[in-house]
């Protein structure tokens, strides 16, 4: 990491204080939670659910799958990580290699990530794909 010298007051040394002030003005508490984040989960075998690394409190606002293999009637679905998982997205078709399929529904009852976390479930053995979950940290 390069530590830039201050352009505004050499007496204050580095790092660049003008830059920090710019960050403070433009990347504040009202902005950062609105930056869309996307977490990728590669599913190679996931009928019992694969946990997703996504922070508690995140608001899931979209999901899509890019299928990585052929699997007739294949699907991927986002659910809560509870012992009895609740569906968050619909089951997205994942039957044809390379096909992109976007979520058709997101259940807002469960789209805030809770203590149980989130899991991605393949519909059946042999369903393979990369699942992208879009989320915000805005409440």
């Amino acid at each position, binding site marked *: 990491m390069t530590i830039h010298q201050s352009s505004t007051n050499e007496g204050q040394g580095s790092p660049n*204080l*003008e830059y920090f*002030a710019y960050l403070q003005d433009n990347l*504040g508490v009202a902005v950062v939670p609105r930056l869309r984040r996307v977490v*990728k989960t590669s599913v190679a075998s996931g009928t019992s659910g694969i946990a997703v690394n996504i922070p508690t409190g995140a608001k899931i606002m979209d999901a899509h799958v*890019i299928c990585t293999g052929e699997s007739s009637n294949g699907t991927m679905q986002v659910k809560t990580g509870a012992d009895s998982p609740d569906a968050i997205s619909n089951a997205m078709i994942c039957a044809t290699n*390379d096909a*992109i399929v976007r979520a058709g529904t997101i259940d807002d009852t469960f789209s805030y990530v809770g203590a149980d976390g989130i899991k991605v479930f393949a519909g059946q053995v042999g369903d393979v794909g990369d699942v*992208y979950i879009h989320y915000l940290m805005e409440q």
Partner: protein
Amino acid sequence: MTIHQSSDGSGQGSPNLGFLEWLQSMFGSTVIPTLLRTVKKSIITTAVAGIAVDIPIGAKIIDVRVICTTSNGSGSMQIKTGADTPVVISDAIACVTGDVLARAGTLDTTYTTVGTDGIKIFSNGASDKGDVYIDYIM
């Protein structure tokens, strides 16, 4: 630009050290790679031979959309690798009617991680024009 005073040590002057601490906690190494980035490339001249896109090596392409800017029959835009012999990444996304938004139907995950050859956009016809948006994460 406002230079904010420190909230946690008046002797430390500006900028606000509390803010810097918060920023550090919010943008850790596990967060930055998840931030969705989108690069826009306006195709305004012929792209039949491919036009390079400024996208970093290692980026993972996760979606592509085209907003057509000119109507042109049989128009399309397609993402491929920037190799001498380009390899298809997306399907050919229709770009036939001005203002129409069309999305990629397929992405070949074998090639969606950007390599040293980079990425290029290829149009079907010399007069196909549109704005191509490539979503990626790191």
